[in-house]
């Protein structure tokens, strides 16, 4: 199977690592070879957390610049920052709800204009799916479910060799019992909301 390479970027605390584990578990359930790596040294202190997940026949656990098939971003400015990981065929999925970095509060940088930034992403890549995952997570019952909302959107694209059912099963085994229902609902809301624009 030709490898599919996924990069997930998020802000520390948004649940990126759990999303990666769910996908890894779903791959194990699907019998798809999977390897992943993460950089999370300062995750609890508000930095960027990035995971790379490679599905299929490859040995590497990291993804070089320009070689992601899919980029999922939990925050819109982080999608823009991660553009160096994309090529002209990459599918980009991003949450629309901004979490401005603290540097903008202390005047060391300006949060970028979303509309122009997103249209640049659309122009330079193979497609852009946007959704307000934060709002959908709240609708599902918990703002922390942003990660499973975005997993729903990701699986809808059909780019990864994973069935929605296996991802649901992984959500059932990998998330805390009390949050399974919320996460499953979030997954469905994300799945329904994913539209290529």
């Amino acid at each position: 199977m030709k490898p599919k390479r996924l990069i997930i970027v998020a802000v520390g605390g948004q649940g990126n690592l759990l999303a990666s584990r769910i996908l890894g578990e779903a791959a194990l359930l699907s019998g798809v070879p999977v390897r992943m790596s993460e950089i999370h040294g300062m995750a609890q202190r508000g930095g960027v957390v990035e995971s790379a997940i490679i599905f299929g026949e490859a040995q590497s656990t990291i993804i070089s610049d320009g070689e992601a098939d899919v980029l999922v971003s939990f925050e819109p400015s982080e999608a823009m920052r991660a553009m160096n990981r994309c090529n002209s065929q990459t599918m980009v999925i991003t949450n629309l709800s901004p979490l401005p970095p603290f540097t903008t509060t202390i005047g060391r940088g300006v949060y970028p204009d979303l509309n122009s930034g997103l249209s640049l992403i659309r122009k330079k890549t193979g497609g852009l799916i946007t959704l307000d995952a934060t709002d959908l997570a709240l609708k599902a019952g918990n703002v922390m479910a942003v990660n499973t909302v975005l997993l729903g959107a990701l699986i809808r694209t059909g780019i990864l060799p994973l069935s929605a059912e296996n991802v649901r099963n992984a959500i059932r085994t990998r998330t805390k019992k009390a949050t399974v229902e919320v996460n499953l609902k979030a997954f469905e809301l994300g799945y329904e909301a994913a539209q290529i624009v």
Partner: protein
Amino acid sequence: MHKLLTDQPGKEMLMLGNEAIARGAIEAGLACATTYPGTPSSEISLNFFQISKESALYFEYSTNEKTALEVAAAAANCGVRSMCVMKHVGVNVAADTLMTLAYVGVKAGLVILTADDPYMFSSQNEQDNRYYGKLSGLPILEPSSVAEAREITAEAFALSEMLQEPVIVRTTTRINHSTAVVPLGPIQPPKTRGEFIRDPYQYVTVPAVSRRLHVKLLKNIEAAAALSEKSTRNFITGTGNLGIICNGVSYNYVTDAIQDLQIMDKVSVLRMGFSHPIPAVLIKNFLSSKEMVLVVEEGEAYMEDAVKALAQEAGLTLPIAGKGKTLFSRLGEFDPAMVRAVTAAYFDIPYEPKAVPDLTDMPEIPQRPPNLCAGCSHRAVFHAVKKAAEGLDVVYPTDIGCYTLGFLPPLSMGDFLICMGSSSGTSGGFSRFAGKKVVAYIGDSTFFHSGIPGLINGVFNNHDFTLIILDNRTTAMTGHQPNPGVDMEELNFPGYNPIDIEALVKALGVKHVAVIKPFNLKKSIAQLKEALNFKGVSVVIAKEKCTLYAKSLKQLRGKPFYVSDRCKNHRDCINELACPAFYIADNQVRINPTLCVGCSVCAQICPEHAISPLKTKEDQ
């Protein structure tokens, strides 16, 4: 039951590299594990810590890596399988023990895990610890994948017993923090009871004994070299006339590059997993059938130098290259595209890299650097010191921990940092030659680790500095591991004797010692002023539990604060404290109530007294 104790051989599990390493040790019958926490190795010991609660495994968070290795060395010489886990720079701390332990050797298997950190994701240098194998004479095993990390760790114990020497397992961040599917092996029950048989002429390293032990070590290196020649961890794939020699994660990038470039029939690969002692015959034979060879290794030219020397011995003149301006760098970590491009260029194979979009018109994205948490007591201390030191010309040596982040503006508290414990030691030199007042920062865990000798040195040699011990009651940076000052009862681990830092510092002869509560700013500033004015060594202990740690123990009591309409937008709160709970909306300062933990420091510095606790329903 802990998932790493699952007794189902053959079952496949998704595991982090560090979990696979811990599992490998458990399968080998590990009885004693010691560590000082350090990224990227920390999760190995975290798993041991958890497992020790429900099994016969003895585990300890030791004071530092040297002590950790000494505990494990003694255990292994009592005949129980032992493991000592540390990050790469930890081996520097343990090096004194390591070098002579190689002379003494072990009775039961002792595995020393060093987790190197190319690119320095969370380290102060990117030293290549393979040289420790050469320096000490000890064997080194290096896995290329998460699954192999389990196998190699388990094998290392047997190898150690065969040679009666410790074995070093060397990983890099991309092994430790990668996740993959790992098949479980059977768990060998540990031998947990040891016995020490006295034999001073083997164990007491006076010169006459050590001269003999060095001879023994050299013999052991020869025996290890013979094992390295036959080891299945050093293997050749493919049959082409072009050769690649590689190790660790580079092997994955090489394997993928050969596929991507479709050169399976042209290239043959020698993967080195038993990388010290280097298998001379295997390498010479490999070289003799090749037209040219590329050495692919992150870090230093460790294998490249050895391979070139072996080629010279064998009278081979084929081109051998690895590091170089147009080849691989000694800096940072490798990635698949880099290895693909260099391989193609070196072997002159056509390769068109994927076109990447032009990004010059993308907007600049504001940085998102890691920051001290909302309600972090370090921020309060830094602010208080700044106020207490107004009018003084100060140099601020700092140390390794979350508080290192205080070097960033606007706090700007950190001028010099080398390694764990260097704040107290360098303070002595600065106090003599910097021409400034010296105020140094060190965390509680780092103080115990290696800060105490520098403080003793300061007292004895009559240096003049203030050491501020940021006692947040845990080892916060690496994930809240215990240190010798921690109240273990809170973690449901009875039977420990926590060290009282204040009593310790007083016993060392420090004449001016103050304990401050950093969230009480006014009093803290007054106490700090006194300490800064003291001539000689003074110590201020800022005692306040790490907010994240307190939260995890369900001890956070504070209510979030808010900014009232008395605010006149001075913005002292943001400009001086830079707490991440602040944000600006409609040009007004606001506090995010889900981030604010109610430390009240901003309320204490607001010139308009505009910041107050949020009223909750119970208050009304």
